Each structure stands twice: as C-alpha cells, then as structure tokens.
C-alpha cells in the first residue's frame, strides 16, 4: 500500500474528541482491576525475585541480585533460550498460517460456512486434561494410533528419546491449540473487509492470488498484527501446561522452554526466588520483543 510510508507516529484517526476527564473515566475500570490483580502481585513477584526463602516463607533472606546472577550463569538456562526461540517462532508460524488459509477458504464458501466455523472453533473447548490423554493415545511411540501409522510407513518415531521429534510434537500441540483462536479472529477480520473493494478489484481483472495479496492481506494487517503479538506472548507464556503434559521438558532438556522452567522450578519444585527471577527476565524479554514489534512491524500495518 502506498499510504503507509507517509505516517510518522502510530497511525490514528485524526479526528479526536476533545475531552479532558472522560478518557480517564473510560480507562478507570480496567486500570483498577489491572492494578489490584496484576501490578500488586507482580510487584510482589519482583520483590520475591530478590529473596531466598523456603516455600512457606518461614525463613526469608534478602539476596539482592544473586538469584539473577545464578540463573544467568547457568548453562542450562542459556540452552533453554535457544529452545524457546525455536519453539516460539515455529509455534507462531504454524498457528497463524494455516488459520489464515482456513479463514480465507471459509470466507469463500457459502453453503456450510457456519458448520465449518463451528467445527473449527470448538476443539478449543476440549479440557486440557483430556487433550493430554489424547496426545498419549495418539503419539506415544508404543501405543499411539498415529505413532503406529508412522511406524508402518517406515518412520521411526520416538519423541520420548528423540529431541527434535519431541520438539515437533510440542510445537504441533501448541499450534493446534491456538489455530482455532487465530481462525476466529481472521474470520472476524475478513468480515470487516468491504466486499465492494474486493469486487472492484475483481472487475479490474485481478486474479485470486493477486487480490489476496494486494487487497485482502493489507486490510487484514491490523488483525494479523494483533494475532502476531498475541501468538508470540502465547508461545512464551501460556504453553507450559502443554509441555508439561506432552514431554515434561524432555528428553533430556530438549523441550525445556523458559516458561516451562519458570513453571517447573517455581510451581513444581518450589524454588521460589529463582523462579521469580526467571519470570522477571522473561517479562523483560517479551516486553522488549513486543516493543520492537510495535516499533517496526506495526509501521507496515495499514490502518484506515
């Protein structure tokens, strides 16, 4: 799109309501809830990251930045950085691209559109505990239905001991869980695109692929940007449950991502100070990453 370069700051509609008090009132409910249920606990977590204490908080010792030093000096921690990057990028790509493709296809058909939508959305509602059981039944190298099929195709499948295969498995599980989500918002985004625009291009003789890249994709950019941010955050923060159920970080440390380590060290192993330090580091990384996304990626996003 041609207009993009012309905008300097964040592109916002130019017409704005002049009002001094109203915006604060509008923000108040969300800020109140955020302050009480997020910032207060988060500040506690920040404080905790500088303590060494037993789980029950009976003996507490202020250790300054020792937890951070210890975490960052651990070669395993640096290893899980690498794992996290591979995992996050792969998960975001495999969660978004198929979802977009399916949404575009679902926008094309008339008959059965509602049924497709329903069928593609509600797997999202399967309780995670059941999903974990199903993964075992499907992919366990000895008994999994799909594992058995793979074996009969001559593929040796053993994610329990083969690191890369375990990675494929957790990426598939994490992306699968998020596809429905992305699909729904892409559908909503497509709904907002005026048909008249697409029709006009069609009359101009633009082919299907060309129409997608020149009209639909740029108009979907705000949605895609939203989903990119959400999926990055998802891959970084919301996937420990899946990793816990599917591989437990193994084999070895092949699928131990940063957030899984935070979860496992803090929630399972009860090493609170260090786990808090890790979550602070993780937050800093993702905030930086998001800032970069807003600074550079959003520039390419065309808003109306």
């Amino acid at each position, binding site marked *: 799109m041609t207009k993009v370069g012309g905008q300097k700051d964040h592109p*916002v*509609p*130019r*017409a*704005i*309501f002049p*009002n001094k008090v109203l*915006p*604060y009132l*509008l*923000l108040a*409910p*969300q*800020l109140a*809830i955020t302050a*009480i*249920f997020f910032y*207060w*606990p988060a500040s*506690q*977590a920040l404080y*905790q990251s500088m303590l060494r204490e037993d789980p029950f908080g009976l003996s507490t010792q202020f250790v300054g930045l020792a937890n951070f030093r210890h975490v960052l000096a651990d070669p395993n921690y640096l290893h899980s950085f690498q794992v996290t990057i591979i995992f996050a990028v792969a998960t975001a790509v495999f969660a978004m691209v*198929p979802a977009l493709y*399916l949404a575009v*296809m679902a926008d*094309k*058909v008339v008959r059965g559109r509602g049924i497709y*939508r*329903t*069928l593609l959305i*509600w*797997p*999202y*509602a399967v*309780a*995670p*505990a*059941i999903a974990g059981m199903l993964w075992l*039944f*499907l992919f366990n190298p000895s*008994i999994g*239905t799909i594992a*058995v099929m793979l074996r009969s195709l001559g593929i040796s499948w053993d994610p329990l001991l083969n690191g890369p295969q375990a990675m494929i498995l957790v990426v598939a599980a994490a992306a*699968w869980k998020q596809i429905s989500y992305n699909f*729904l*918002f892409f*559908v909503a985004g497509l*709904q*907002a695109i005026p*048909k008249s625009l697409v029709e006009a291009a069609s009359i101009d003789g633009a082919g299907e692929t060309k129409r997608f890249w020149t009209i639909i994709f740029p108009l979907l950019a*705000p949605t895609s940007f*939203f989903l990119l941010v959400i999926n990055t955050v998802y891959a970084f*923060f919301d996937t*420990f449950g899946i990793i816990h159920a599917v591989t437990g970080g193994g084999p070895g440390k092949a699928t131990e991502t940063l957030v899984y380590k*935070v*979860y496992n060290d803090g*929630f399972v192993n009860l090493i609170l100070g260090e786990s808090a330090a890790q*979550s602070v580091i993780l937050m800093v990384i993702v*905030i930086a990453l998001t800032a970069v996304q807003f600074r550079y990626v959003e520039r390419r996003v065309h808003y*109306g």
Partner: protein
Amino acid sequence: MIDNRPSRRIIAHTVLLIGVFIIAFPIYYTFVASTHSLQTILRPPLPLIPGGHFLENYTTALFGGIGRIGGVGVDRLLWNSTIVAVLIAVGKIFISILSAYAVVFFRFPLRMTFFWLIFITLMLPVEVRILPTYKVMVDFGLIDTYAGLTLPLMASATATLLFRQFFMTIPGELVEAARVDGAGPWRFFKDILLPLSKTNIAALFVIQFIYGWTQYLWPLLVTNRNDMGTIVIALRKMISFADADTEWHLVMVTCILAILPPILVVVLMQRWFVRGLVETEK
C-alpha cells in the same frame, strides 16, 4: 458473490474439510472413546471408529455415573461454569472496549503510558503469581465468591489490544462526520462504534467464554467449597493419572457433555458474523 466457479468452491471445501479433519480430530477421538467400553480404552491402541457402548456409557454418566463429582449436582457445576464464563467474557469486553475507545479516540496526557500499562498484563500467567494473588484474594474476602472467580481473569489486555487494532481501521472521516452532525462521544460510541464492532465482539465473546469455561487452576485455588466448583474441576476429579483407576469411558462422556455449552455459544454467535461496514447488508 465474487467467485461462482465450482472449481474454486470445490477447492475451498476440500481445504476446509482437511482442516476440520485435522483440527477437530481430537474431539472426534474423544467422542470415539466415549462410545467404547473401559476395557477397550484401557487396552490401546484405541480404534478409530465409534464402538457399541454409546447408550450404555451416556446413560451411566447421566443417571448416576457422575456421582464421582462429590456431593454436588451436575446442574450446579454447569451453572457455576456458565456464570463464570459469561461474567469473564462480558466483563472483559466491557472494560476493554471502553479503554480501547479512550486510547484511540481521545488525546490526553500519559495516553500511551496507560496503554502499555494495560498491555503488559498479557505477560504474567496465574501460575507464576499464585502466592501474591492469592493473598490479595484473601485480603479482599473474595475466596468462594463469583467475584473472586472472575475479576482477576478480566485483568488481561487481549481484548483491549483487539479493539484498539479494530478502532484504528475506522476512517477518520467517519469520526469527523459524526462530529459535524453534533454527535458527542457517547452517541458516536453507541451508534457507530458498537454496531461496527459486532463481529469482533462476537469473536471475543466466543473466545473468552471458552477461556472462562476451561479455566482450571484459578477456580481450584479460590474455591474451598464443592458447591462453588466448575465442571472442569469436576472433570479433573474424575481423572486419575497414577494412583487409582479411572473410569475413562465416563470421563470421555463428561468431556463431550462439557463441550456442549461452548458449542451452543459458537452457534448462537454465528448470527453476528454477518458482513457490515460500508457494504449494505447481505
């Protein structure tokens, strides 16, 4: 319609069918498992087609089998789940559409600071801040209340970001025109913004309803009474991974039943997914 060529439609249907097959397979497999006997489930591999115990399993589960849930009727659990899911979805949409409205359509000091303050809340899952958050809940006396079950989960930036993204696509001319017509912020919000946002609201409602519906760890922490439990907690109570035997066939049935309300929501929300904006209806 743009494309009436049947070949295009066939391709689209094929792609969708493959997508449905891959994505909905776990649901199908859950259903398959719910129609087999416990013996079959316990001796994998599990067959790919439904078995002959459909009636038997479903009647057992519905009439007495879910007695494992612990003295509380399924209706109560479903009711709790519904309340929690609806409150979370509505609450989130409400607070975030307001804050996004403020951030996009008003200019005021610290605007972006506020946006980022809200935005950062995307990044700290409950598991990581359990101890301090629990303490807040106790201090406010919110244990075993619906407020305690829902308020902390509304503190998330997803919806705000989505509405911001959407509002920014609304042409400036539209706002200008509204102002020329003498519409104040409230009229503009009600008559223009809300109707335009209905697809997004519908999408968010579906997602947040399911999010609330499948919540597990948080309800577990803030409820100490069985009659405040949700259906997902009950489901987890039925599943034993190590120590004892699990009636997997009944678990699978319960899981299928627990998926029905979200399906209902998706189907009801379909109505809102109609094209709006510049184009005239239909």
